[in-house]
């Protein structure tokens, strides 16, 4: 019997992503054929050459050639990336194979904070004043020429790794040296010119929100807007709580959505998910960052689309929407569920080696809390921000209001206790 037609999705999964289960299982639910591409070979690749392929994520042009070779034998109908680097690879492959995707230049600009700032500023999108500085430069000299408060950040690292606020010249010098030390680590120092520069930009006060959206032919559809109720004023910018729907005034939300759309246009993004960080104050909505990928970590678990019942549009995940979009399938719904929802990226409790986590059951028992996920393993090292980028885990809650969800997340977190011991 002939097997029914099933489109093939090329899913770009770096081996260090948190997103594997969410995307692989979403693809299975949709009944599409999946090829998982990673930067390191699976031990099963020879046994399942249709379902597994290794691509050179460090070289998008090379990856596109590899993908073309693969697609000759196994036609590909859509491509999905899950992080900043694979978004650039996906764009190159989409262009090579004629798939729905972003122009390579747009994806590359979204990944690089300096390129992004330049394009946004040129297009009139509100961004902090910024300057590019070489890490080889003398920090004392730079510090005297800077305006305060300012924020120093690497051009590409994710999860606010290496992002530091400085309020005066001594703070600038300390921040600069700290970031330089991060960028000189062997795994980063070889990454290219971007790792030899730092972006210095004006600190913009205000409430920060995260916008999750889906772009179709250049037009942004906002899927969710998350408040970040913990102030992100530095000196480091480790994220904690995201809660949706936003409690900002409707006009502020409209300004934020317009800012995100303007940024999408300025960068030249055409198709696929975006995740934007935007600050809002009485002057404007300021684009802090926009990435051509979905929300990171396990945070997508806070998003669910459709409202109960059964059928096509019930309980749809963000990953299902993204896969459907990539394959040109019908989107059953893009309306987020009625309930408020939130996630806490559990803060790193301090430097050390994780020995035990206590209180998970108690945290789980907090009303409205749906799930407490500890993603770090015993024996793993906690590295606080700004050097770190790995959360101990995630807490999820749902409820009638954003206030109640936020309170539940905080109550659950208060019940957790991380026992560590000093690193050798």
């Amino acid at each position, binding site marked *: 019997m002939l097997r029914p037609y099933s489109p093939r999705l090329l899913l770009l999964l770096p081996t260090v992503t948190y997103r594997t289960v969410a995307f692989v299982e979403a693809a299975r639910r949709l009944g599409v054929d999946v090829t998982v591409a990673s930067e390191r070979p*699976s031990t099963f690749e020879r046994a399942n050459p249709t*379902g597994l392929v290794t691509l050179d994520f460090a070289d998008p042009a090379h990856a596109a050639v590899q993908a073309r070779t693969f697609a000759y034998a196994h036609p590909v109908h859509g491509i999905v990336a899950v992080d900043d680097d694979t978004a650039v690879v996906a764009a190159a492959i989409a262009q090579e194979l004629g798939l729905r995707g972003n122009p390579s230049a747009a994806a590359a600009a979204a990944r690089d904070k300096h390129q992004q700032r330049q394009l946004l500023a040129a297009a009139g999108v509100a961004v902090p004043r910024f300057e590019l500085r070489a890490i080889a430069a003398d920090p004392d000299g730079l510090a005297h020429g800077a305006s305060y408060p300012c924020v120093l950040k690497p051009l590409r690292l994710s999860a606010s790794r290496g992002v530091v606020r400085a309020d005066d010249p001594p703070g600038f010098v300390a921040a600069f040296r700290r970031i330089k030390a991060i960028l000189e680590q062997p795994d980063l120092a070889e990454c290219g010119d971007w790792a030899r520069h730092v972006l210095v930009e004006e600190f913009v006060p205000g409430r920060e929100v995260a916008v999750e959206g889906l772009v179709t032919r250049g037009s942004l559809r906002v899927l969710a807007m998350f408040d970040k109720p913990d102030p992100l004023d530095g000196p480091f910018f480790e994220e904690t709580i995201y809660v949706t729907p936003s409690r900002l005034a409707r006009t502020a939300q409209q300004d934020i959505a317009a800012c995100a759309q303007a940024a999408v246009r300025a960068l030249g993004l055409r198709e696929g998910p975006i995740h934007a960080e935007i600050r809002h104050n009485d002057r404007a909505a300021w684009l802090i960052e926009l990435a051509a990928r979905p929300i990171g970590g396990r945070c997508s678990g806070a998003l669910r689309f459709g409202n109960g019942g059964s059928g096509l549009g019930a309980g749809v995940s963000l990953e299902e929407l993204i896969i459907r979009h990539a394959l040109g399938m019908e989107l059953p719904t893009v309306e987020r569920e009625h309930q408020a929802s939130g996630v806490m990226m559990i803060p790193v409790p301090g430097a050390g080696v994780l020995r035990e986590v206590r209180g998970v059951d108690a945290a789980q028992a907090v009303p409205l809390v749906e799930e407490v996920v500890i993603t770090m393993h015993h024996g793993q090292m906690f590295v606080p921000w700004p050097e770190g980028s790995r959360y101990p885990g995630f807490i999820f809650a749902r409820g009638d209001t954003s206030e109640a969800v936020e309170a539940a997340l905080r109550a659950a977190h208060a019940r957790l206790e991380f026992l560590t011991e000093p690193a050798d």
Partner: protein
Amino acid sequence: MSAEVRITAEPIDNGRCKFLVSEPVHAGGVRRFASPDEARGSPLAEAIFAISGADVSEVIVSGNLVTVVKRSPAPWPGVGKAVGQAIRAALAAGQPAVASKPAATGSATADDALYERVADLFESQVNPMVARHGGRVELIDVQDAVVMVRMAGGCQGCGMADVTLRQGIEAMLQQHVPDVKGIVDITDHTAGSNPYFAAAKK
């Protein structure tokens, strides 16, 4: 006793959730129930199938782990609380929560034959492959042509474990043992202490 039972829910996706229980629920290997009829005589499985609005399609019990599969889009928090109550009630009743595996029937005989073929595949191909990453995959049981596995070593808690399961092991089963209808991972991945790939990015 029931007040002391601790249960941790680990949703895999909106359809499947693992419940880790602080004490053994069923010590006699793995039991899988694919319908309320099959659950008859096993109080825990009966109670889970009876959860209103969940439309439970499968219950798998093994040691301290209860895996529940549902068709309903109802979110896990509500369903999970009902599952937790069912587990606590079953343990408090002082009777076996799950009946022992029945004597071999036609289906069980077929499962036994499948088990042998799957075990051969695991020994000859699957485990040598995962061993290259310090991993190991145990074949726990085959019930109604569904294979139950537990991952260990570098596979337990690995960020790519689901890729290994779906794109590796499941694909090999489809090719070499096409009578297999599905595969279920009953691993407690949170307890993995040496995963080959650890998730690091936000």
